[in-house]
C-alpha cells in the first residue's frame, strides 16, 4: 500500500511537473520568438541597428535560460538555435539584408520548434 501511495504521488509529481515545464517552455520560446520576429520586421524595414538590438536582446534572453533548458531539451536543438543566432548577428553586422532575414526566420522557426515538439498534440503523440 505504501509503495502504491508513493507511486501515485510520483505520478502526480511527473504530471504536474510536465505541465509546468510545458507552460514555462511555451512562454520562453514565445518571448525569444518575439525578439526574432521584431528583428525580422526591423530587417524588412532596413533598420539594421534596431535588428541588431533585438538580436542582442534575444541572445541575452536565450543565454540566461540556456542552462535550465539544457536539463530538459535535446542539446542538438539548443546548439542549432545558438548557431543560427550567431549567423544572424554576423549578417546584421555586415548589413547583408537577405541573408540576415533568412537567418532570422530560421532562428524563429528553430526556437518555436522546441516548444512545438513538446506540445501535447496528436501529431506529436503519433
Amino acid at each position, binding site marked *: 500500500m505504501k*509503495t*502504491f501511495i*508513493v*507511486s*501515485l504521488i*510520483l*505520478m502526480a509529481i*511527473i504530471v504536474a511537473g*510536465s505541465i509546468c515545464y510545458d507552460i514555462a517552455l511555451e512562454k520562453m520560446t514565445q518571448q525569444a520568438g518575439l525578439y526574432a520576429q521584431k528583428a525580422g520586421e526591423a530587417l524588412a524595414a532596413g533598420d539594421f541597428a534596431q535588428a541588431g538590438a533585438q538580436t542582442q536582446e534575444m541572445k541575452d534572453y536565450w543565454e540566461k535560460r540556456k542552462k535550465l533548458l*539544457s*536539463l*530538459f*531539451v*535535446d*542539446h*542538438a536543438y539548443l546548439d542549432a538555435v545558438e548557431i543560427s543566432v550567431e549567423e544572424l548577428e554576423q549578417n546584421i553586422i555586415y548589413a547583408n539584408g537577405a541573408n540576415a532575414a533568412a537567418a532570422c526566420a530560421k532562428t524563429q522557426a528553430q526556437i518555436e520548434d522546441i516548444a512545438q515538439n513538446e506540445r501535447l498534440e496528436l501529431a506529436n503523440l503519433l
Partner: protein
Amino acid sequence: MLVIFFRTIILYLVVILALRLMGKRQIGQLQPSELVVTIMISELVSIPMQNIGVPLISGLIPVFTLLVAEVVLSFVSLKSRRLNRLLSGHSSILISNGKINEKELAKSRFNIEDLLEELRINNYPDIGDIEFAVLETNGQLSILPKTCARPVTARDLSLNLPEVKLTHTIISDGVVDEAALKRANKNMNWLTKQLTNNRIESPKDVFLATIDANGSLFVQTKEVKA
C-alpha cells in the same frame, strides 16, 4: 568521459531503485507485464547513458512513468481478478489425470518436445509418471507426479519429526547481525562467551556464524591470508 561515467552511475542507481520498488517478483519470475517493463527500462536508460546530448531527465521520466504504471497496475490487478487475467493470462493444464491435453498444448504454443524437455529438466524423464502438469503464467511448468512416482515423505512413513525452524545468521563476514541475534533470543554477552569457548578473539575473525532452533552454534573462522 566523466560525464558519461556519472550519468551511468545515476542511471544505474535509478534502475536499481525502480526494480526494488517494483518488488521481489520483478527480479525472480516475471509476469508478462513485468518482463515488458524490465526490457523497456534497460533500453530507455541506455540512450541517455551513451548520448550526452540527450538530457538525463528524458531517460528518467520514462523510467519513473513505467515504474508508476507497473506499481499501479499491480495494485489494481490485486483487487480486480479480471484485470489480473488480462495482464497475466491464466495457467494452462497441459497434462490432466495423466493425459496430455492437446488443445491446451496447442493454445499455449507448446509442442510435445517442449513438454518432454520441461519434464526432463524437472527430473521426470517418464511422462507416464505425471498426473498433472500446469503451465503457470510466468512460463514455468508445475508438475504433480502420480502417487507411485512421488518421493516418499515423512507422513507416508508415519514419522513424527520435529518441525523445521529457521536458522539465524548472526555473523556474516565479520559483521554481527544484532537483530538476528535478538530473534534467536540471544545477546552479545552470550555470543562473546561462545566465541571465547571456540578460541575466537573477536567477531571480526568469523566468516560465518549461524544458530539453529536448538541453540546450536555453527562457526567458521576467516581464512588466514598468507
